[in-house]
């Protein structure tokens, strides 16, 4: 028991440490309005807010719809290729947002290959002569981002549904409901924590994205942050913008927590009966097939083929000894970072479960903030944080791998925490009560009861964070030591020198590693 008390204290200190870079940014909200700030308010701030909100709601709608509907039908029904879809639906997650945005612009913008082809068929010279939606627009950005972010919702919902399907079927049978009614009155309310956990991650990532909105010319909070920092040379005002965005996201998280509290479904505990899938026939079969095909095609097959095309044309120029070094550096960063984060997040969430302190719960929510702000801004917080530490202890941690991994914790703990929260919410409190009535020690409860139930969430967290780290760009770029590169950094450099084709080679390795991890995860989920 003593051990767990220590856990509580050390977890508190760790949470505070990890939250501090975000908090260092957040305090800027209190700074007085500078001349720059007044200028922003007078000119562009309202547009930033509007566009960011539009993106948040757009991405929330699309990702929750695509992610949950596909998770649901692949869990409850069997249809043509449904087993294949179980894996394939996660694949878009392996494609970095900047890659899909370049690929889509290359195909569908006003001079894109597909656009030109269609214009050729119609015998028109350019798009001003036909009805045309430019992919390089805010709607285009929402679609493109949603296509690679919906797997958050899919993954978390799926893990959840597999565990809950028995109760779902039970409940609906008892109530004598038809399938649509079941969906509306049972499944959605039951799955709410999972849908929300996944959607919040997707929205936070979308709202923190710079690559897509910058390239597509959409002014948002994020482009504003960089414009203010880079263009006006004011880190302070950029941080203030970032703090406003954080406040925004934080309010959303709290609202959800508060509002969801009454509606939250309590698991019955009869979870783990094997699933018997209903086979679909005829039109229903075709509809299910198409519903799953669209996101896989648009989110994976299409951008992946474009990448493959570029890859084949250029791999010989890029694969050399140096590439091997970069590959190894990326892998070691990814594995060590995601392992650490997965362990830390477990400590935080489990600590809240067994102690239930309000304070630690709020602190944990604060830790999530790191995910809602762009990597480069997190980097500023981390730099500032380490400059205090460096001076205080007379060491040089900034510019070391420690700073990079710490920054990953700041940025990505939210993903892991959200995973565990959804996972823990389906372990009924009665289990804990039973353990204490039977005087099972905390240690063996952890080992024999909690861990087996939560290990899927742990695995999911490890894999998702691993993919995030190998895709991560700005943090790594700003904080890394000399002569240290990752695949994402290398790919970005190649894009920067107009070698889009060559940049697909490191990107392809990111995607392949992502695919491997994703398949591993999907396989594990099916087995359990």
């Amino acid at each position, binding site marked *: 028991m003593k051990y767990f008390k220590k856990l509580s204290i050390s977890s508190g200190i760790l949470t505070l440490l990890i939250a501090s870079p975000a908090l260092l940014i957040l305090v800027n909200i209190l700074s007085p309005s500078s001349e*720059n700030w007044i*200028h*922003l308010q007078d*000119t*562009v701030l309202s547009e930033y807010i509007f566009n960011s909100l539009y993106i948040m709601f757009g991405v929330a709608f699309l990702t929750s719809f695509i992610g949950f509907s596909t998770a649901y039908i692949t869990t409850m029904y069997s249809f043509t290729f449904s087993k294949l879809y179980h894996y394939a639906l996660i694949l878009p997650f392996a494609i970095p947002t900047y890659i899909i945005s370049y690929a889509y*612009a290359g195909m569908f*913008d*006003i*001079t894109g*290959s597909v656009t*030109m082809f269609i214009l050729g068929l119609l015998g028109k*010279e*350019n*798009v*001003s002569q036909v009805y045309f939606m*430019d992919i*390089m627009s805010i709607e285009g950005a929402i679609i493109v981002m949603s296509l690679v972010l919906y797997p958050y919702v899919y993954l978390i919902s799926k893990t959840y549904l597999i565990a809950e399907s028995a109760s779902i079927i039970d409940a609906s049978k008892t109530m004598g409901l038809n399938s649509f009614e079941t969906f509306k009155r049972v499944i959605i309310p039951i799955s709410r924590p999972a849908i929300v956990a996944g959607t919040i991650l997707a929205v936070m990532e979308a709202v923190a994205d710079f690559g897509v909105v*910058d*390239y*597509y*010319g959409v*002014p948002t909070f994020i*482009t504003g942050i*960089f*414009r*203010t920092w*880079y*263009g*006006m*040379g*004011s*880190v302070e005002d950029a941080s203030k913008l970032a703090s406003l965005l954080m406040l925004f996201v934080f309010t959303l998280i709290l609202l959800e927590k508060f509002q969801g509290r009454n509606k939250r479904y309590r698991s019955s505990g009869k979870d783990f009966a094997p699933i018997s899938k209903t086979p679909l026939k005829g039109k229903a079969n075709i509809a299910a097939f198409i519903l799953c095909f669209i996101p896989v095609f648009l989110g994976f097959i299409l951008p992946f083929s474009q990448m493959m095309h570029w890859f084949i044309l*250029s791999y010989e120029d890029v694969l050399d000894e140096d590439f091997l070094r970069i590959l190894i550096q990326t892998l070691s960063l990814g594995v060590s970072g995601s392992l650490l984060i997965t362990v830390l997040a477990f400590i935080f969430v489990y600590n809240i479960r067994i102690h239930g302190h309000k304070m630690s719960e709020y602190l944990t929510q604060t830790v999530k903030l790191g995910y809602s702000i762009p990597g*480069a801004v997190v*980097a*500023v917080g981390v*730099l*500032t944080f*380490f*400059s205090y530490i*460096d001076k205080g202890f007379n060491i*040089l941690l*900034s*510019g070391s791998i420690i700073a990079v991994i710490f920054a990953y914790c700041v940025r990505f703990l939210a993903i892991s925490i959200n995973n565990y929260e959804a996972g823990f919410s389906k372990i009924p409190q009665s289990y804990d009560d039973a353990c204490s009535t039977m005087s099972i020690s905390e240690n063996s409860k952890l080992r024999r009861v909690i861990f087996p139930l939560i290990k899927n969430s742990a695995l999911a967290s490890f894999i998702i964070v691993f993919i995030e780290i190998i895709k991560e760009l*700005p943090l790594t*770029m*700003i904080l*890394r*030591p*000399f*002569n240290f590169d990752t695949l994402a*950094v290398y790919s970005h*450099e190649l894009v*920067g*020198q*107009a*070698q*889009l*084709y*060559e940049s697909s080679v490191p990107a392809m390795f990111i995607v392949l590693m992502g695919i491997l991890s994703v398949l591993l995860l999907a396989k594990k989920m099916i087995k359990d």
Partner: protein
Amino acid sequence: MLKKLVLTSLVLASSIFAANEVNVYSTRHYDTDKKLFKMFEEKTGIKVNVLKAKAPALIKRIATEEENSPADLFITADAGNLFQAKNKGLLQTTDSAYLNKSIPANYRDTDKQWFALTKRARVTVVKIASTTDKEITSYEALANPKFKGQIVVRSSNNMYNQSLLAALIEHKGEAYALSWAKGVVANMARTPKGNDRAQVKAVANGIGKIAIANTYYIGKMVNNKDKSQREAVSKMKIVFPAFENGGTHVNISGAGITKYAPNKANAVRLLEFLVSADAQKLFAQANYEYPILAGIKPSALVASWGTFKEDNISLNALGKNNAKAVKIFDQAGWK
């Protein structure tokens, strides 16, 4: 005794090793630079350690690291970034007879804190067949209503646009710059999006008639694996506009030695090497930039675009006016 000896020699060896390196913070991520650093290593035996990131991030990192900073040389594209670094007190004076002699006065800092390495021009690109080039008499003319619906240009988030407007502010003042920016916005064929190359592609495919782009991008499009870029650029020609009271807007890549450089002597050697004839030839050939060293010719392709009169304002003005430029873009509604 033996242990002591080994330890001492190890410490000695490591200090010699440490002394024989130079740490570069660079925002330039070109293969050319990689090759140049390798050439320098082979020539001098000094190891070049490189960290690459965006300029403001590197500036922030040097500022935060203060006297602990391992950085010796800060290399960046855009004079505005060099001005920022200098203005924040992150650079130091370098007295090098070779640099002073080799680099024209307008392309080195008056306080000897930064030195240009290469030049590029921001120009307009039009279709070969068009006669628009006759009408583009100056940058100022781009705001003329006769170009309504003709201009495509990237977002004002981009530093190249910010520097261009900063130069105009220096020439004509803020009020004029604002009305100019409004005029250009009114003339745009579409809202700004994509990079410089995307603008050239757009005009080649009938969207707008005048693209604004940096010169070296044109070179990169000519020698590109992407067929659509080669095809697009083959239909285009460069027009060098000039400011009414000056010349064509030129920006630079440059470098300065950081204030707390632990390997200053090596950094000076590297800086001088980058301005040497060998290095300058490589800059000119491989990256389609204009060399800074007199007597080194640009590449054949770059030379084929023709010559132009370079603008004469102080490059520090680009940095000084940059924040003003961003605000004017905001006011003018240039996305």
